[in-house]
């Protein structure tokens, strides 16, 4: 369980550039949840997850993971070591290994695993992110952007984190590359029951993969709810520089035109079923 208590972060406190990046954020996320994080650029999403991962020390408040304080150095280096994995934005710029396999093995070796165990973990992580075994001995720098991105994500998965945090993992990828990476994360979430926190600007990705959503605005947490409840506040989201998925827009317009359809629908399959049901009812009533 992740518990954020009165979490705040101020850049250059007392200075002329003082800026409250995160203000008094409180939430609880249960184990095994797939939670999306949305918010406009500069709303504090990245600072928030960096605090959750123990990389940035909050200026106020604390983060507890399974009751343990992430910012206690002793705990972070012992009980929580390798438990929280963070994939940064554009992680492919952080690759450095001479071969793909070597790059992914770096993390597990650092956790103190033997060469053989690290290799096993690395291979499994690469398989999970859909990297073909024929590429294991290639230099990561010779591969395409999408492949590099997968290798960088595999580098974090090889640590077997219980909590996986991804900061815009699909920015700049083509539609298929985006779906491939997110479905492998979703697969892993279901199989290993890990907790996933996903930052994305794509409302479609949220609709497809997340169970609940944290909405950040101006450093504050302004919503933490199920996906359908968050997307039912279309107007409020737009005011915050966000949007609702296209399917939600279709459903809301249909309702405005007098079609009796549930406003909670945000996925393609649910929309299809609901519309077809209404259409069949209408056909039956005409006969």
């Amino acid at each position: 369980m992740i518990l954020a208590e009165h979490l705040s972060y101020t850049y250059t406190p007392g200075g002329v550039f003082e800026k409250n990046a995160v203000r008094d954020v409180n939430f609880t996320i249960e184990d095994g949840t797939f939670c999306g994080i949305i918010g406009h650029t500069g709303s504090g999403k990245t600072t928030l997850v960096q605090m959750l991962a123990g990389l940035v020390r909050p200026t106020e408040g604390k983060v507890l993971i399974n009751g343990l304080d992430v910012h206690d150095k002793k705990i972070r280096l012992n009980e929580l070591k390798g438990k929280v994995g963070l994939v940064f934005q554009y992680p492919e710029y952080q690759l450095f290994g001479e071969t793909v396999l070597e790059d992914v093995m770096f993390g597990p070796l650092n956790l103190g695993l033997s060469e053989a165990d690290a290799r096993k973990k690395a291979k499994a992580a690469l398989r999970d992110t859909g990297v073909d075994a024929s590429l294991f001995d290639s230099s990561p720098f010779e591969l395409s952007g999408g492949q590099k991105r997968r290798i960088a994500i595999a580098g974090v998965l090889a640590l077997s984190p219980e909590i996986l945090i991804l900061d815009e993992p699909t920015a700049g990828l083509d539609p298929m590359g985006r779906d491939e990476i997110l479905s492998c994360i979703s697969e892993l979430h279901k199989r290993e029951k890990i907790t996933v926190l996903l930052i994305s600007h794509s409302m479609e990705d949220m609709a497809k993969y997340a169970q609940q959503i944290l909405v950040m605005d101006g450093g504050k947490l302004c919503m933490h709810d199920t996906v359908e409840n968050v997307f039912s506040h279309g107007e409020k989201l737009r005011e915050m520089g966000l949007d609702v998925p296209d399917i939600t827009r279709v459903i809301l317009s249909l309702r405005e035109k007098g079609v009796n359809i549930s406003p909670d629908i945000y996925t393609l399959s649910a929309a299809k079923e609901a519309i077809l049901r209404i259409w069949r009812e209408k056909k039956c009533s005409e006969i």
Partner: protein
Amino acid sequence: MIRIENASYIYPESGHAAVCGVNLTIQKGEFVTILGHNGSGKSTLAKLLNGVLLPTEGKVFVCDMDTALEENIFPIRSRVGMVFQNPDNQIVATVVEEDVAFGPENLGLPSEEIRERVDAALRAVDMYAYRKHAPHLLSGGQKQRVAIAGIIAMKPSCIVLDEPTAMLDPVGRKEVMDTVLRLNREEEITVVLITHFMQEAALSDRVIVTENGHIIDEGTPTEVLTKREKLQKARLDSPLATELLENLAEAGMPVDTKIIDVEACVNSICTALGKE
């Protein structure tokens, strides 16, 4: 405006053929979108448009000037400006208006003319109110609009934008696309947009799909974006509204599947349900 004749580009280090025998003409005032998956050759194609790269085979002409001739490079680059994905890599000054002035200053223009061009460019992207601000404190969409203003201040007749919204939030994306559309419609600037977002492609006059360095499809947004199978083969996708309509049509509901926007999708469903 731009004419590509049987152009190919092979990267000298890797021998990879990123563009293969492409023929394409872009008319003055047109808004053309180039779609394609990562590695399909679209960015290489864009770099051929103003002589950043020269074709290893074939020719590229900008206003009838061959990009391969050195004396043409300067006039070509002053006609075709480029905007890239990451706004942070394109901003050089510490004040917005100084950043926009960088290009015209380098043209050696008199200072009154520079002033005029900078003000006009900032107004054109709706960033005049921020002219004294520090660029690094702006949002992503604002920074990208400043980068566009820097290009506009050079008075180009064509702008090539290589995934200008990939790093932006939904509002930032809309700000940039509204700006691009206005420059195209009102200032009659030719636009070549490279993107992965189908909603953006839907706004253009013509869509071109690239795959393995070849152009595999071309047409109006509706023609191109409703061919789902073809798009999926090219690792792309059709808009969700189109996908929904296709799903409904497959189940027998009488809806129009040649639709790419939400509003028309809603109207088609309403008609089928007898709600006008």
